[in-house]
């Protein structure tokens, strides 16, 4: 895979993504008794979830099940009406410095070049200019975009924009990466390519990740563990380990013997939990 070769370019084994291999502690997420109401309806109702360090968790569910709300609460972007979230033991009541978010619509600043978009959070958190530049370039190299640093987001395709979004998240060396339907806005083919690249990245640099999606295939492909959420009220209806080892590829997951049973199990859960049939595919 091209992206993996690109990723190995720096060559000196520097930790660009949070390193699973360095024995760093922290990076776990503990949610307990979470509630979130919009008006009279509970979008998230009494949710308990523990995500261990370096675990890749996908949250699937129909529209309106509160999966994005859950992610936004973890990110410190939505208030928590009741209950607590702790990331690496730190209480979440606003965005934490050790948490990076990848947004559905990329969230790139149109007036900043690719390089400056990636370097911004580093500079903003007080990283010196030279160091920030080095880390931004490393992160761009990881996603295979180191040669387009001086372009503006408007010049990029959707897939490239989301690679920049990913690079920006990884550049700050977070303990936790939260991804909110990051590939929902790109076409199906690009989506598969991005999944492939994400798998390659994660097999090199293990990292705690919560990935919200409404695609069952995407969830099984990427996750160590799939959380299935149901609607009205938003709650966890199933919690499934994905018994497919790493490194993986999109194709190897599809060929795996447990792929189809898993897929059917999740699909049944979703059908059972959602009376409204009109969710997006």
């Amino acid at each position: 895979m091209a992206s993996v070769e690109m990723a190995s370019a720096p060559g000196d084994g520097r930790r660009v993504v949070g390193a699973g291999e360095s024995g760093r502690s922290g990076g776990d997420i503990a949610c307990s008794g979470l509630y979130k109401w919009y008006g009279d309806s509970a979008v998230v109702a009494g949710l308990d979830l523990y995500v261990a360090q370096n675990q890749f968790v996908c949250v699937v569910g129909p529209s309106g099940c509160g999966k994005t709300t859950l992610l936004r609460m973890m990110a410190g972007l939505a208030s928590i009406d009741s209950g607590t979230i702790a990331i690496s033991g730190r209480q979440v009541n606003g965005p934490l410095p050790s948490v990076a978010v990848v947004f559905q619509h990329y969230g790139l600043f149109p007036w900043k070049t690719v390089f400056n978009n990636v370097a911004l959070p580093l500079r903003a958190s007080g990283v010196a200019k030279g160091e920030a530049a080095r880390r931004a370039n490393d992160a761009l190299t990881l996603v295979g975009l180191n040669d387009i640093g001086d372009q503006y987001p408007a010049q990029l395709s959707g897939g490239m924009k989301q690679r920049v979004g990913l690079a920006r998240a990884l550049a700050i060396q977070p303990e936790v990466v939260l991804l909110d339907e990051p590939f929902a806005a790109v076409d199906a083919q690009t989506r598969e390519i991005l999944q492939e690249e994400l798998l390659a990245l994660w097999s090199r640099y293990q990292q705690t990740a919560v990935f919200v999606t409404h695609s069952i295939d995407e969830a099984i492909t990427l996750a160590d563990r799939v959380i299935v959420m149901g609607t009205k009220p938003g709650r966890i209806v199933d919690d499934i380990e994905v018994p497919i080892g790493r490194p993986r590829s999109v194709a190897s997951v599809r060929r795996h013997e447990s792929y189809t049973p898993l897929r059917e199990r999740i699909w049944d859960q979703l059908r059972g939990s959602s009376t409204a049939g009109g969710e997006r595919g």
Partner: protein
Amino acid sequence: MAQRVEPQATGAARPGDRHGGVAGVGDKALGAQVREARRRRARRARRRFLAIRLTSLVVVFGAWQLYGMHTIAILFAPITTVLHQGYLLFAHDQLGSQLGYSMWTFVCGYAIGVAVGIVLGMLMGAYRWAEAAVSMYVFALYATPMVALVPIISLWIGFDATAQIVIIALFVTWPMTVTVFHGVRQIDAELMEVSRSLRLNRRQMWVHVLLPGAVPYVITGATQGVAMGLVGVIIAELQTQLSGLGDALQTQSQTYHTAAALAVILLIMVLGVGLRAILGLVQHRAVPWLRIDRGDGAQR
């Protein structure tokens, strides 16, 4: 929900095929060709628009000339006479110094109006408390014809250049404020969320998000402000102490030197067009990220 992607049908995805970072040499040559073709198309389009513009000028000025030659001089004059009168006003009258005076008050009033508009509009856009505190006055003044305030301003400040500058600033500042306010509000909600997520502090938020995000609107407001400011100049010069271009206009038309009056009007028009063109250049330089969408090498 079921998104059945059959693995056998498409085969394994090959990263880099379409969107990857590495493009083959053939791709690069093709890309250059496509870009060149696009540039040629853009050049052709520009030439065509220029031709239409020139034709339009010829037609309008031709009609002006014909009509002017067949009417009485007190009502209208052919363009050639108007231009000649304009030259005479410059050479033998005070049109040069009058123009200078008007430009001076315009620049002062315009600068104040734009500055106040940016500050007020940004504050109102960024902070709800500022909006709650002042937006009703801003919108009330925005909806009021500023001409109505001129007699009061004269009463308070007098009839000199200071009063004129204040009047011009008032003409410029309210549309400017409203445009900038809306501009800041229209900065993508997701981008505001991103800024929070990136833990930008207040200063960083202004420097990296609010100010650059508002730049296109500031320029739009400043461009509208040129027209408003020129209205302000003439009204101020007619309604306070008769001076500058307003003086020239008034004197020439009251003494039935219609051609000369038309020359002054033409000059004001040229000023408006010229100042807008300057702002267009500023815009082109100040917002490089918006230049991209004009089809020079963008792949959307």
